[in-house]
């Protein structure tokens, strides 16, 4: 099955291996920080048996942050996988085609106008994400929907929404005070009350996306073939993009405008897990994205301790070069294996 893969791990072990990696990175994230804790203390605190400052650090500072990283990483990676597949474009990702910026704009508006409604933020973000992807698709369909046009339209739409975020922040300077580093994405000072509503949205959207993996597989054969196999291709494309918008929107609603994880994680997952099964690919991307973001966050707060970098900065420092490498590879016509 995997004679041509660059990596020699059998594909069926990839998902469990990435799962283990995600768990490991979560443990690392709970243990490391300004006050290093040993795994025993962390476990005791998690099981409710610990006491004192260690338990408080774990439960109120590190646990929300770790959960936030795992969730945001998984959601953005899954959203990226879906978007790349549905648009047949390896350069598409939630932050590139306007999904993240749309979600960010609505998050800012919601936080500015109704500061008390934290539970509504993920839904506002979902609407914004949907607006972003809808606008890009509309422009794309009007101009012929070539792969480059979609990316360019996404850049334009992202720019507009970003300007919108700035405008909101000019009028309501305190709107995003609950977020550290909203513009580059950050997970410091997260509280469970912000992560929990997003968790339910992400869980539901990911479950639905996973259940539609067979449909996504068929969609990848091209619209003509998909429809001849009885798949309502256009409706399904919209449903899948809406699910991607929900995933990305929920992540942005608490972590801000994290870029790159939605682009990198799907590509790494493709290389590791292959593209035979979208279900496996989605799981691999989500687990890989969760691990990647969590590790980036650990680096962000340990590299220059006592100073902390926003996790988005570390991610961009790693993700930028990766994206460029991808572009160079693309020019040689090997991207995503499409002819």
């Amino acid at each position: 099955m995997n004679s041509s893969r660059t990596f020699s791990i059998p594909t069926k072990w990839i998902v469990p291996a990435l799962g283990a990696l995600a768990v490991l990175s979560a443990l690392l994230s709970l243990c490391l920080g300004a006050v290093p804790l040993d795994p025993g203390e962390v476990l005791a605190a998690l099981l409710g048996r610990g006491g004192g400052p260690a338990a408080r650090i774990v439960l109120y500072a590190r646990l929300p942050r770790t959960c936030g990283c795992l969730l945001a990483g998984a959601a953005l990676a899954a959203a990226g996988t879906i978007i790349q597949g549905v648009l047949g474009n390896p350069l598409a990702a939630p932050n590139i085609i306007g999904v993240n910026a749309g979600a960010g704009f609505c998050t800012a508006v919601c936080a500015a106008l109704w500061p008390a409604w934290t539970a509504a933020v993920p839904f506002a973000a979902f609407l914004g994400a949907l607006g972003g992807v809808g606008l890009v698709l509309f422009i794309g369909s009007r101009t012929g929907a070539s792969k480059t046009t979609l990316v360019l339209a996404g850049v334009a739409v992202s720019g507009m929404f970003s300007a919108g975020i700035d405008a909101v922040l000019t009028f309501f300077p305190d709107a995003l005070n609950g977020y550290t580093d909203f513009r580059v994405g950050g997970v410091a000072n997260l509280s469970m009350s912000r992560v929990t509503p997003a968790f339910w949205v992400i869980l539901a959207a990911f479950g639905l996306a996973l259940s539609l993996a067979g449909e996504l597989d068929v969609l990848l054969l091209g619209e003509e073939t998909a429809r001849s196999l009885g798949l309502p291709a256009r409706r399904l494309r919209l449903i899948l993009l809406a699910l991607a918008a929900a995933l990305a929107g929920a992540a942005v609603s608490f972590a801000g405008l994290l870029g790159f994880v939605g682009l990198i994680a799907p590509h790494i997952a493709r290389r590791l897990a292959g593209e035979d099964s979208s279900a496996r690919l989605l799981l691999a991307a989500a687990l890989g994205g969760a691990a990647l973001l969590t590790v980036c966050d650990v680096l962000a707060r340990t590299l220059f301790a006592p100073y902390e970098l926003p996790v988005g900065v570390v991610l961009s420092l790693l993700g930028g070069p990766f994206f460029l490498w991808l572009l160079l590879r693309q020019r040689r016509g090997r991207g995503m294996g499409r002819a």
Partner: protein
Amino acid sequence: MLEVNHLSVGYPGRRVLEDVSLAVRPGRVLALLGPNGCGKSTLLRTLPGLLPPLGGEILLDGKPLGDYSPRQAAQKIAYLPQSRAVPSITARRMVLHGRFPYLSYPRRYRREDYEAVDRALAAAGALDLADRPLPELSGGQRQKVYLALALAQETETILMDEPTTYLDVRHQLETLALLRRLAGEGRGAAVVLHDLCLALTAADDVAVLGEGRLLALGGPKEIFQSGILARVMGVRLDRVAGPEGWRYFCELRSED
């Protein structure tokens, strides 16, 4: 049986073919012939409902095609498009998607689906390619895999848009032999072909399209004798008696 009456096909604002009546009958191979741009592919795309007809009716087993859900229709009609995506998946996985119309949500492929895939791969002569990733295959090999995809659907009717492009002569002949075999199993096939000579040899019925309509419909001999095919294609068409029946050949018309 797939049957169309007074069908008009084309795109909004541009009618390509008008008043086409023909049938894809079980056990027979129907070749659609005509010059480039005459609407062969447009007609073939309209037959399974991929393109809405501009007029007339499409009947599947006597009932309007619109009465069937897309999934039900896909269990009865397989369609091999002219342009095909090349996703980074193995050939077997690709062919497995031919079983998609038989599964309900959430899709889980069953043992019998995998068996159907092996049968289809074997029939298309692509069994040895099963575990190779599609992007690594040559154009002709990919063509076989696509053929297997259509076969895995196990439909009564198969529509193929130029199944012999990219194939060398042996594989072209093999593809036509496969069509004959499918007809022998009682299935009906409609095929767009560019090679008139192959088409006249292999088909039971020939539909000649041109000038925005169906110009002629009949057996290869009849069509040949009427001279309509040669006229619409702008060539001289002739035949010689071979050991296994008539063999046709085309030449440029000498200026007269």
